[in-house]
């Protein structure tokens, strides 16, 4: 519980979910809907995209595509988190909840806290930390939903601005390789270009292009050292 309280990201998470609750209210979804989306989707950007696309009259299929594109990042996150939990006795079903709880906040905190947690207690630790974060977010969603009518536009804008800022800097902080940094910068720059094409899958287009270029840079830089090893 102390781990939950002590992170700056929890504060950002709290504010973000106040924003999501308010957005859900303004888009005329029910409170139960907003809470279910927080508990079951558990990914801030995906929820913002889901609510704003459905609210602006997109079809279910268009929303689903936009959400799934934004969620691709969860795949490598889960892949990098699970080895920290796994022991020879661990069964896959023990890790289902860990996989569900994996999102950017938890992912960042895993690298910070897990080295101090004994291996066999890590799954329990993540269940506790993740459960705490989800609870905090459910409370924030409820508060945001009920406050929405009284929120000033300025406050609403400030809260929605938190998501891009927090995601940008927490991702930038966790860039471990050159490819990650290049991908982040190129992804930011290429999106406005891709958006001009109005393809409906703009983010996928700019993301795959920027990511592949970044991988190319990584491959090209790694090449000479591989040759010298031989």
């Amino acid at each position: 519980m102390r781990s939950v309280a002590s992170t700056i990201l929890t504060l950002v998470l709290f504010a973000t979910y106040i924003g999501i609750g308010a957005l859900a209210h303004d888009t005329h979804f029910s409170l139960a809907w907003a809470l279910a989306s927080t508990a079951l989707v558990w990914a801030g950007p995906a929820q913002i995209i889901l609510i704003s696309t459905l609210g602006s009259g997109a079809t279910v299929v268009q929303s689903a595509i936009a959400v799934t594109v934004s969620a691709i990042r969860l795949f490598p996150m889960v892949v990098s988190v699970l080895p920290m939990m796994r022991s020879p006795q661990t069964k896959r079903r023990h890790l289902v909840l860990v996989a569900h709880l994996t999102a950017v906040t938890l992912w960042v905190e895993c690298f910070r806290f897990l080295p101090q947690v004994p291996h066999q207690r890590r799954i329990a630790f993540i269940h506790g930390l993740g459960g705490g974060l989800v609870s905090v977010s459910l409370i924030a969603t409820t508060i945001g939903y009920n406050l929405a009518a009284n929120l000033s536009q300025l406050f609403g804008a400030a809260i929605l601005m938190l998501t891009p800022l927090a995601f940008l800097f927490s991702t930038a902080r966790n860039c471990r390789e050159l490819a990650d940094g290049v991908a982040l910068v190129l992804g930011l720059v290429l999106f406005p270009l891709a958006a001009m094409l109005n393809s409906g899958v703009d983010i996928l287009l700019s993301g795959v292009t920027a990511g592949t270029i970044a991988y190319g840079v990584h491959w090209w830089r790694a090449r000479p050292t591989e040759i010298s090893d031989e």
Partner: protein
Amino acid sequence: MSGFIGDWHALVILLIAGVFPNQIWRMLGLWFGSGIDEGSELLVWVRAVATAVLAGVIAQILVQPPGALASVPGWLRYAALAAGCVAFFATRRSIFAGVASGEILMLAGKWWLG
């Protein structure tokens, strides 16, 4: 109670458009994760694409802002991002400094605009 739950139709849409498209990536990570070496080239590429997609999501919120954020003029949104970046690197990558500076600049700009 019906006010709390709203209509069931919307909850079904939540599952189809929100929960399933989001969870599939986590479950794929769980399913295939054990077979992939953390330092493998494939994973470097997947991570680069995932990072770039996240960057795209960030850019989309700034370029095509949802809800109340649309009331902030574009130049001010980008200036806030730039201020955040400056603070982030000036403080040797403090997430808090980056987020706080971006927010403060945006709020100050909005206040100044009236």
